[in-house]
């Protein structure tokens, strides 16, 4: 999640051809990738799809340090592989689908500023939903800052140590509790500020 601000920076400061393309086309492209993932049947088709998405990733010259983000979702699929006998065909299919989707999403987020994405979504979905999404996305940055400060306090109080699980759990829970209370305080301030600016369940992007 700490990469979020870096992705945000890349999306606004990048100069590649994908950065200049309209957000609507990029979202459409992402939907095409998703359709491919859902509908493609054989391994060669899925390899081709991944190669295309990967080709776009390297063509836009995005920094390689964000590439591991595309591999992160593989961690979550391992549990599901128990449903098969870890058959190589099944594993490859699942991995290629995961990698195509995650690379596509990272590509979208690293080349499109998030207000532009929400602007497009606002045309097709209820504004309440998009507003909630926007506020959540904005709040992640606020909470990340609080989280960084809390982490320092946490380390000073012993942090998280496997040797002291009880104390560690209490520390971690207090940190989350602190995060929630700080978040609620910020949300009240945010609500007052938004009301002063005439907020009525809709944000104009």
């Amino acid at each position, binding site marked *: 999640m700490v990469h979020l601000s870096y992705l945000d920076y890349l999306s606004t400061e990048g100069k590649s051809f994908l950065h200049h393309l309209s957000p609507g086309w990029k979202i459409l492209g992402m939907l095409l990738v998703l359709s491919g993932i859902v509908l493609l049947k054989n391994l060669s*088709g899925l390899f081709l799809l991944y190669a295309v998405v990967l080709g776009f990733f390297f063509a836009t010259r995005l920094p390689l340090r964000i590439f591991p983000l595309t591999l992160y*979702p593989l961690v979550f699929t391992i549990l599901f592989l*128990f449903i098969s006998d870890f058959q190589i*065909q099944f594993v490859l299919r699942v991995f290629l689908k995961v990698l195509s989707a995650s690379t596509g999403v990272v590509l979208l987020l690293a080349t499109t500023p998030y207000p532009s994405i929400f602007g497009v979504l606002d045309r097709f979905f209820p504004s309440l939903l998009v*507003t909630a999404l926007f506020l*959540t996305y904005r709040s992640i940055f606020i909470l990340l800052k609080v989280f960084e400060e809390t982490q320092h306090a946490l380390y000073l109080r012993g942090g998280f140590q496997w040797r002291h699980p009880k104390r560690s759990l209490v520390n971690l829970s207090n940190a989350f509790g602190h995060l*929630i209370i700080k978040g*609620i305080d910020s949300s009240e301030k945010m*609500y007052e500020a*938004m009301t002063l600016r005439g907020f009525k369940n809709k944000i104009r992007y």
Partner: protein
Amino acid sequence: MSHIHLPDGILPIWLWAMGYLITMVSGALLFRLTHKEDLTKKLPLLGMMAAAMVLGASVEIVPIAYHVNLMVISGILLGPSLTFLAAFVVNVILALFGHGGITVIGLNTLLLSIEGIFGYFFFRLFWKVWKRLIPVAFIATFLALCLSTFSMIGVVSLGVSHYEDLMHQDEGHGVFEFKLFKKHDDHHGQSKESAEANLGRFAGVTLSLGFLGWILEGIMTTLILRYIYRLRPALIKLEQEA
């Protein structure tokens, strides 16, 4: 653990499409019951709670492939209808980071909502009986997580024949596949038995790791609620019931 970390293209189309449909209908019904003014006031709070849940989900406990959801706390602080919207928002954002596919957002919303909404009701119900925060919070969280994990296994089990297809798909039978519903004569006997056996293994692994997760999240939720109760008891809204 309780929501589906499946990527796109694994669950059958009818299943995830149904997930979206039920989510839309349930969402519409729940919002009819919510006051508009209350909604406007609570949207920033919803955003903050959803952000806290996203951050919680990003702290992975690697040995047991588990992460905390904070869904029960969210349910207690936001109430059932807003928890549903928070679950949807959290799943959209998590899906954007590959934490579950985009097509399974509907199903994940339903499963996480089960956790949040039942957590809320269990918490209120047990509070009326015991009036002691620590056991009430722990048991409510444990039961809510247990319920949503079993629901998740139930949802995954609905697509067994589709996983069979994925396992036994031969190369050279075309590039694309579009089956809204599964034909009944696709697989018989032995393959179906082996699929059932595999689902048992999946359920076994999920439940055994999940059990540790439920305890861990139960303890964490209890400690977080105790912290909030000490500093801001009004947020949990228990005083009038005590």
